[in-house]
């Protein structure tokens, strides 16, 4: 009797599947969406890709230290380091960017490539991206008694690997081994380090608090220098087409090389307010508005 019932049940199931269409995903290996809110997370580039023919525009600011109190409006009076960056997606995986930060007037050219993308079915459990770039310090050094540095002596390079995983709807983490190289790290440059080569391990965390905002964390211990480690804590908000990122961080540096060589204040005492605005524009398409 049980057997017959089983056969009957089986037939009922096949009967119903004949009646309705079977629901099937178009792509079983659907990538995970938004491991991070934006291609930047506090200061570090993320694995978040850009879609072909889109451009990521970011304005980043870091102000003076908070410990001046209300007299200096918590560091806002002390002048900001500002970085503008434009990153263009050449394909869905490869993008090229240019940035300019006001500290030492550094122009950076960089590229970012998404090698692996985490999928919802966990067949690929993480995303992996590479980034690298070259920068040049364009400050005037006419005031120096010795000859001003030449182009090569002004250049610096960086390379990093971003390994990220969205562990749950709420929690994403990224590990970022980073390195930077200064051809001639002069003391007149606004960096604390005097080495040529810097190695560090970036740790980024996102904890989603509401549908559109997250608590963000950044910790960048230096691996081959005595410089303090970078610590940052912040808040990301998606508002319409913008992602706003507000944070407290121990360094005023914004580009990758300066982030590693620039030095850091004591966490808690010498935090600075930072603020990024991220926006993605579609280019070469009919619909421009977000």
């Amino acid at each position, binding site marked *: 009797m049980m057997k*017959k019932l089983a*056969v*009957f049940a089986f*037939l009922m199931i*096949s*009967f119903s599947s*004949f*009646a*309705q*269409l079977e*629901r*099937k*995903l*178009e*792509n079983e290996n*659907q990538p*995970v*969406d*938004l491991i991070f809110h934006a291609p930047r997370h506090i200061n570090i580039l993320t694995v978040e890709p*850009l*879609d072909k023919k*889109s451009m990521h525009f970011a304005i980043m600011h870091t102000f003076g230290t908070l410990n001046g109190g209300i007299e200096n409006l918590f560091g806002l009076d002390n002048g900001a380091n500002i970085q503008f960056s434009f990153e263009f997606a050449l394909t*869905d995986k490869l993008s090229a960017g240019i940035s300019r930060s006001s500290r030492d007037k550094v122009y950076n050219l960089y590229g970012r490539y998404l090698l692996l993308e985490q999928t*919802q079915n966990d067949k690929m459990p993480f995303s992996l991206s590479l980034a690298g770039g070259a920068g040049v310090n364009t400050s005037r050094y006419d005031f120096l008694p010795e000859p001003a540095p030449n182009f090569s002596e002004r250049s610096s390079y960086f390379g990093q690997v971003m390994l990220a995983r969205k562990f749950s*709807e709420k929690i994403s983490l990224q590990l970022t081994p980073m390195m930077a190289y200064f051809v001639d790290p002069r003391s007149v440059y606004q960096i604390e380090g005097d080495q040529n080569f810097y190695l560090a391990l970036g740790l980024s965390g996102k904890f989603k608090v509401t*549908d*559109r905002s997250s608590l963000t964390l950044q910790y960048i211990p230096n691996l081959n220098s005595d410089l303090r480690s970078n610590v940052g804590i912040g808040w990301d908000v*998606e*508002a*319409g*087409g913008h992602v706003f990122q507000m944070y407290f961080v121990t360094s005023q540096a914004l580009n990758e090389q300066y982030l590693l060589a620039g030095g850091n204040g004591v966490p808690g005492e010498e935090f600075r307010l930072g603020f990024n605005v991220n926006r*993605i524009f*579609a280019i070469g*398409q*009919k*619909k421009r*508005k*977000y």
Partner: protein
Amino acid sequence: MRNLIIAFLFFLPSLAFSQSFKTESGEAIFLSKAPLNEFTGESEKLKGLIDLEKNLVDFYLDLNTLKTGIGLRDRHMRENYLETDKFPFAEFTGKMKSIPALNTGTTYPVAVVGKFKIHGIERNVEITGNLQKTSSGNLELKAKFDILLGDYEIPLPKLVFYELAEKQEVSINATLKPVK
């Protein structure tokens, strides 16, 4: 009992050869008209079945295939609004109020009643559209209906009300081929 099973076995092939029509590539367009921003989410992967014999109308769309033209907006749509990792499909299953004669070349207005499901919420809906049998034996379906995001527990934050409309105007455009 055995007779019942045999009856089912006889019944199955007749179902497979019934008067049913299918599509794998229907078009679905969601139009959002917010005060400051008008955009569409479009897909050409609408799957559909119309069975005239059993009066069954069954459609579903993998919402991951919906594209607005801006990748980041697609990601926000999937992650914040539709939550496609949990609820990947928009589905409709129902029947026609009355099955039209479907003479070749004539367009018939049809009304279907059934359940529409998106974001894991199911509601009874009535949708009107036009159905036509073409000379090649296909069924052409065009339908338009509105859905209110609130009805399906898709929250619309006050900050973005000017970017995203509460009322989504859905258009369906599909050519269904007879199942052999």
